[in-house]
């Protein structure tokens, strides 16, 4: 994202990173994670679980910012995020389609 003026503390800012884990067998395909992830990281997968639902999967090459919202909203305890440290803003790949909600 180009800035015409750099924020003064830009070099200090670090964005957290997470690794998404999905427990396929628990998912009921409600779509909460897909709808509300601020990074728009999820899509419905082709996989089908024992109850006949399509669990979500993560779009490759996009970074989860470890906000934890999906894990909180998922009604079926089917997602959790593993902490993967932080990175500087330049190296994070944001979803170009995501908008501020």
């Amino acid at each position, binding site marked *: 994202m180009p800035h015409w003026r750099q924020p003064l503390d830009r070099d200090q800012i670090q964005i957290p990173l997470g690794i998404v884990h999905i427990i396929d067998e628990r998912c009921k395909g*409600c779509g909460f994670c897909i709808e509300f992830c601020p990074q728009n990281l999820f899509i419905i997968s082709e996989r089908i679980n024992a109850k006949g639902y399509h669990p979500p999967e993560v779009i490759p090459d996009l970074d989860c910012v470890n906000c934890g919202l999906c894990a909180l909203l998922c*009604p079926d305890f089917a997602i959790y995020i593993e902490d993967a440290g932080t990175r500087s803003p330049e190296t994070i790949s944001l979803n170009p389609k995501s908008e501020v909600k």
Partner: protein
Amino acid sequence: MSSSERLRILGYEPLTESDWETGLHPMDDLLRGERLPHIWCQGCGLGTALSTFVNALQWLEKNQEWDLDKVAVVSGIGCTGRIAGYVRLDSFHTTHGRAIPFATGLKLANPELKVIVLSGDGDLAGIGGNHLIHAARRNLGITVVCVNNFIYGMTGGQVGPTTPHEARSVTSQYGNYEYPFNLPYLAAASGASFVARWTTLHARRLGWTLRDALAYPGFSFVEVIAPCSTAYARWNPDGKGLDPESLRRRGLEIMKHYQEVGRIEHDIHPKDAHIKLNEKGEMAEIVEGEFVKESRPNLQEAIDQRDVWAEKAWQRAKKALDERPDLPAQTEHIPRTEVQLGGFGGQGIMSAGKIIGRAAALYDQLESCFTQSYGPEARGGAAGSQVIIASDSIHHPHLVRPGSMIMMSQGAYSKYIPNLAPGGMLLIDSELVTLPDDHRADITTYGIPATRIAEEAGNNRAANTAMLGFWTAIVGAVSQDAMRQAVIESVPPKTVELNAKVFDIGYERGLET
């Protein structure tokens, strides 16, 4: 013997820790993982409410050193009621509506416990509505999380106490004609000291509120608005109803709707915390936030304060008990002796009865039993009291055939005289009771002007004491010393001397007759 060994002997194979620990998800520490996936429908908000709750507990454990062994979860019946079966904490699934009474018992018996009631709107506001308002009124130190999905979900979607006006359900197909409760307003008006509302969409803020609510010392009430994707959304447009496109995403449609209509307003008066529908029957506004945070002593603190007073009163009573003189016990065998006292209210008929009982029980060490009967008029009206004295146990507390009577008014005389046993003794205040011509001939009548005696001694209210002295001398069922001591400790401290004097006059008049 350990509990697992005992179970094995009884033929059960107890679950080992590892059976429930799935290790699949970090929240599984607090969940009975072997029971997941849970029974709630696709898109139901209850799962989100539970995960937010578990998240708040884990935060409290980590950051405020909560001991989760001291947390108990209670729920009632309904979809939400299932939560008690999914948390890996001490939990109890009560009967319908009775989660709060159960929690009240838990909390009072073990004030150390953090007791959380997690139940639905039907259970808490419908079947158990009375318990909710009374627990709030007492400011009992528990947290009530009411998951409100506007409907009786488990039973198939009947209209409930929170179904919005004009919303549809299985039993309100043309729109609900009743008006719903505003639960935060109800809780706050009943006395809850912490009141908040969030939708499940605002899970993060709900989590923050839960951290505060769980740690709050008084009664905290959190309403969680949650989608019922099956029973409520089917009939109402927020979940796109029966629209085939949205059939499998009704819960999501409602969550998206919350995003549009949720309005956060902290600290407003809960009566303004509306949930409004528009003309299409969609939720048009849901006001959420933390509305009330008040500090006043909770029930346990209030009990402890009263305890201090109770302790002081007991110390005073104990001192008086310890200072009691030791009088010799009655050595004679006293058969069942029944006494009827009567007069008008204000003459001390009740206290005279109690004094006889006290003298007999405490100093003569007999058995005694006292009952009283007031006419509907109370003060100034007819009053009666009954005493039974015996050396043996008294099995029947009511008078069968009183052998003596103390009558201090004409009305009481007429009312009670037929009951006096033949050959019995009637004691009257001779100036207040005039004997009629047909006065019973089979009894002995004794009279003294008790009220006049008391008046001359300085206080006409001691007339009952004069009658007691008179009765003691004539009937003789209770010893003189015991009676005199009982009078002294029953009357107000300033009148002890006067009453003792009046008692002695009455006693002497009794000996003279």
